[in-house]
């Protein structure tokens, strides 16, 4: 299933890779500032759409096109991204 996810997923994963050294964390802060959009959706709105987003991924579709604001939030919000990853672990196991 990961082969179907495509490069957009790899970008999402790379955008949230943990950083430990202070310099890396400052670089992460700079990257977060750079990625900041004038308008962003919050965690509540993303939660409402997370199941839809996850099903799109599971079907091999690109949610960055269909749900761009949610996709953008997931590049920045560690907590929401963790929940998406957990949800995708369920869906990729072939569970109903």
């Amino acid at each position, binding site marked *: 299933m990961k082969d179907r996810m495509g490069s957009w997923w790899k970008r999402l994963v790379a955008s949230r890779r943990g950083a430990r050294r202070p*310099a890396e964390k400052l670089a992460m*802060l700079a990257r977060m500032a750079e990625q900041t959009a004038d308008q*962003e959706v919050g965690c509540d709105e993303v939660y409402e759409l997370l*199941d839809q987003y996850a099903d799109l991924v599971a079907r091999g579709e690109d949610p960055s096109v269909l749900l761009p604001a949610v996709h953008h939030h997931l590049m920045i919000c560690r*907590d929401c991204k963790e929940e998406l990853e957990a*949800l995708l672990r*369920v869906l990729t196991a072939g569970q*109903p």
Partner: protein
Amino acid sequence: MRKVERSNDGWLQDLQSIGLSREAALKDLRIILLAGLRRALAGWVKTHGREFDALAEDFAQEALLLILKNLHSFRGQSRFTTWSHKISVRVALTELRRRRWKDVSLENLLESGEARMLMDSPAQGSPDRAERPALLDWVRKLMAEELTEKQRRAILAVALGGMPLEEAARRMDTNRNALYKLLHDARLRLKRRIARDGVTLEEMMESFSSG
């Protein structure tokens, strides 16, 4: 009893009914959620053994209550089971984050070396790409001049300290969504100030990433 395959409408119909249909649907959904949690929580906790079984059972029960309470809000834009797993995952991760961070106070994080590095008073001087200490002073100046105290604390706790939003929000007497918006405003202020000061983000990232 044999597990029945259900469509979204089938799930809604059975869960909103009374009697055997509802019982069967609840039983099937519980089994689905438990199996899902075993996958979802890999990497968070050991997903085998009696301790996990008990934990997962608690999460599944709480999720089932929330699912039943919020059936009216299911919009049919995903599979019902995906929607249910989403609720279950939120229940589980909220609790696991709480347990993981329960002994960490906001003050602990803000007293850390990294936080002090950014909270201490900035020295005078303009950023120089070749001198990281000057650039660090400039970052301190940025944060002191552009952000409110609350925003600085939130940035240090969440972005640098790794504290989950929910946990930071609880300690700051707010909620996750409001804290995200506070942080968004902070990021936007930093982004605009960086642009006004004529420093490119590539320069910042290169300087912080090197060495």
